[in-house]
């Protein structure tokens, strides 16, 4: 990814920043500057909480050029709690039985490790939800994750 483009995308990539329409209150990720529903251009930055549920997922055996160093990897679509769907890589899924509807949360990870330009591209990925320590202690992990 080219440096100016990476710089332009940093708020979305680092902190899941989209936009929200002041007129009709629909929120968007990726960010839009015009609301396609009401055609308002009064949209402000809106940061999403980063938790959601898995809409679908796929283990990729063949990576496009630029992603070979991390292949094979898993990608998914996540329904954010605020409404929008988001496309992202899934991480920390080794040994985890993925299923549609499972709770996931955003983390910041390396997207491209060895870019031809010499810098590392960081951004959001999603992992199976790690419960707060108190909740984990009070019930078996499997049962808690299923709720």
């Amino acid at each position, binding site marked *: *990814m080219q440096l100016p483009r990476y710089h332009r995308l940093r708020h*979305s990539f680092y902190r899941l920043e989209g936009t929200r329409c002041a007129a009709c209150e629909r929120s968007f990720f990726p960010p839009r500057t015009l609301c396609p529903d009401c055609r308002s251009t009064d949209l402000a930055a809106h940061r999403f909480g980063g938790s959601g549920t898995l809409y679908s997922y796929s283990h990729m055996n*063949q990576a496009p*050029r630029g992603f070979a160093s991390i292949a094979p990897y898993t990608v998914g*679509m996540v329904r954010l709690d605020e409404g929008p*769907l*988001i*496309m*992202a890589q899934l991480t920390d899924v080794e040994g985890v039985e993925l299923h549609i509807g499972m709770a996931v949360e955003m983390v910041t990870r390396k*997207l491209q490790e060895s870019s031809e330009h010499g810098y590392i591209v960081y951004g959001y990925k999603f992992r199976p939800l790690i419960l707060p320590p108190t909740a984990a202690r009070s019930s078996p992990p499997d049962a808690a994750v299923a709720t």
Partner: protein
Amino acid sequence: MRNVGVVGIGQCPVAEHWDRSLRDIATEAVTAALHDAGDPAPGALYVGNMLAGQLTGQENVATAVADAAGLLPIEAIKIEAACAAGGAAIRAAYLAVAAGAHDCVLAVGVEKMTDHLNDAVSAALATAADADFEAGHGVSFVALNALLMRRYMHDHGVSREAFAPFSVNAHRNAACNPQAMFRAEISVDDYMSSPVVADPISILDSAAICDGAAALVLCALDDDHLYPHTPIRIAGSACATDTLGLSERRDPMHWQAVADSADAAYRQAGVGPSDIDAFELHDAFTIVSALSLEACGFAAPGDGVRMAADGSIRREGDVPIATMGGLKGRGHPIGASGVYQAVEAIQQLRGTAGEAQIPGARTVMTQSVGGSGSVAVTHIFQG
């Protein structure tokens, strides 16, 4: 608007043409189409192509094709709409004739994919998706379709095997098409045991990387006496778009652009799904066949795979699809596929489809889809 018909078709075999360039294969298709039309002098050339800039390092592709095919100083413009570029080139040619700007126009689709290794082709194809928020995260084009297939299986409670008949049917029909890339039938067992690319999508769910070119000559129907073949009328032509990113749709499982383009083409032609004798749909992946049948009014959500299971999609069925192999069996040279579909529709309507002939075909629909359902071009041809 003038009525428009097709009076010439040409194609080169879909294959890995290691020793032939983009210009070579485009020239073969253009020359064959012009010859089929009685060698008229076309007023314009519209070239459907997606990847030449990335994989051949050649933009200005329409000029390159016009030059190679000996058509200078013809008006020549490249039309790009991702994997729907071929259908979009036909639509541009149709509009030019319908509007009266030209009386005779060439539409050619061409793609040269085999000059690169798979990872480069995969990255190039991913540019049909959102560059920043899909491709930029390493989500390949296959993976986008795999996400849809997994969700479809979940929503409708079907297994991977439910998609097998799409691939089996495409290969069965390709075996009857001398221009097809894969002229061998496959079994359900072959399908189930083929290697996984991005689960649940395997090799036999997916159209292969290949090279190809196909061309049409379009004319005003008022001038049909000038050509040796009785024109096949373009009764409907429509293009529609949806969000670039798959995840930005309210319901990713409903392909609204596909539905909108089909509905507009039906309205223009004055027909409905029950009038379609064959449907050349965009079967780049088996899941696309199911979603397209559903979006175009042939099946309710979840019933696309039922049409595959009960044989409705076979040449003998109610809605034959991929009658000469489709993208899966004939091959899917990206920007050329939409024009191959049209060439095959004309063969069906002329009654020259050989073993693949649908008896008595009078109305054939073709549909080119770009991105993950983000742009769709539908044509209805009537003989």
